[in-house]
């Protein structure tokens, strides 16, 4: 096992460029789980980003908020400026417990690419863009286009996430709903983030597909203004957008059914009706 301790982000980018196999690590809340048994990881080389203060900054600009790659859930929960993006602190508060929230980073949640990630859906519902950096330069990728399948990321091997950019818009509706086995320390069985602004509807699902994803058929349905008279009327859209599976935490049938009902009730004021 080897560890690269970069003194600056530029140095970290050089290391990642020269050794594309290194595992970048920030808070470690995913990578260190059951560490004594994680033999394959013991053989890897690591790139420690945790000491790079330049990545820990939260910057509010006129029309956007920029989260550096080391910004944690707890940073956002504590910062009252995030009242303008209320889904962020709401989702952050459902991740693990305080001890996880103080270490886990938003960028790490993106990079870990769990289908059950709770930070990713709210970022995606707010049209977040990810700044990917390498020694060759920077590029901005919409988070909604970041995943190409289960743990398949847009990132090139020489790139690191530098920051996450969220446009500041006025939302007249936004919600984050997590269905887990209990209130704290639960991994999501069914989750969604919903937001409406002048940019239109955003409906994002987690634990419902190989990666967190926007539900474009459902967004179009709601955008159309066509009345939806029952949760089952959402089912065609759900089946077009997501593909839940049976796993240790839940079943495909449960996920589909609960997703349709939770979404229906969230959207009731806009397009639903009890017939």
């Amino acid at each position, binding site marked *: 096992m*080897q560890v690269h301790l970069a003194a600056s982000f530029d140095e970290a980018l050089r290391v990642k460029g020269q050794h594309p196999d290194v595992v970048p*690590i920030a808070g*470690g*809340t995913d990578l260190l*789980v059951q*560490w004594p048994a994680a033999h394959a990881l013991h053989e890897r080389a690591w790139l420690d980003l945790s000491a790079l203060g330049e990545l820990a900054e939260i910057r509010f600009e006129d029309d956007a908020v920029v989260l550096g790659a080391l910004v944690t859930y707890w940073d956002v929960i504590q910062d009252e400026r995030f009242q303008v993006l209320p889904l962020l602190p709401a989702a952050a508060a459902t991740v*693990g417990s305080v001890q996880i929230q103080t270490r886990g980073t938003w960028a790490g949640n993106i990079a870990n690419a769990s289908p059950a990630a709770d930070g990713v859906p709210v970022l995606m519902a707010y049209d977040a863009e990810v700044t990917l950096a390498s020694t060759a330069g920077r590029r901005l990728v919409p988070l909604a286009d970041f995943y190409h399948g289960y743990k398949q990321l847009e990132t090139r091997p020489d790139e690191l996430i530098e920051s996450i950019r969220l446009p500041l818009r006025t939302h007249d509706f936004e919600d984050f709903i997590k269905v887990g086995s209990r209130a704290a*320390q639960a991994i999501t069985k069914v989750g969604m983030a919903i937001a409406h602004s002048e940019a239109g509807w955003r409906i994002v699902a987690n634990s419902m597909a190989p990666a967190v994803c926007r539900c474009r058929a459902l967004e179009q349905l709601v955008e159309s203004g066509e009345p939806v008279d029952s949760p089952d009327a959402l089912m065609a859209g759900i089946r077009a957008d997501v593909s839940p599976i049976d796993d240790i935490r839940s079943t495909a049938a449960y996920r589909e059914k609960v997703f349709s009902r939770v979404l229906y009730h969230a959207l009731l004021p806009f397009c639903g009706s009890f017939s």
Partner: protein
Amino acid sequence: MAESRLEICFTLNGAPVTAQVSLRHRLLDLLRYELDLPGSKEGCGEGECGACTVHLDGIPVNSCLVPAWQVRDREVVTVESVVPGDIARMLDTGATQCGACTPGVVMTARWIEANPQLLERFTTRQLMAGNLCRCTGYDGIIDGLEPPPDAEDS
């Protein structure tokens, strides 16, 4: 680049420490097996139970999820820093039975005590949600952390 062991300096319970840390050690391993501070317990080893809670730069973290080399130049406070009289009310409320969770419970409790403004936004139960206890049913722990009922009420 470093191989297998790395020399790091950090502050431990207020005193400067230099240690040759194994790259495979978590902070919990460093404390328990290298620095002779076995107060922090390993419960689940995956960040659920909170028995290994320590303060890193003043905030509670699970030491089972922190690589030891990440604490270089940082400040670590463990349950060994607790002195008699800290969290004294917990002694009277049945906050501990088997004791496995207690070191972590105490460390989260001390963080809440040191940051009373947290209670303006969160309940004690929310802040303590990362410390699992299989004995007490939690009421004894919560009672030990909240202000005692007024004399008139009792």
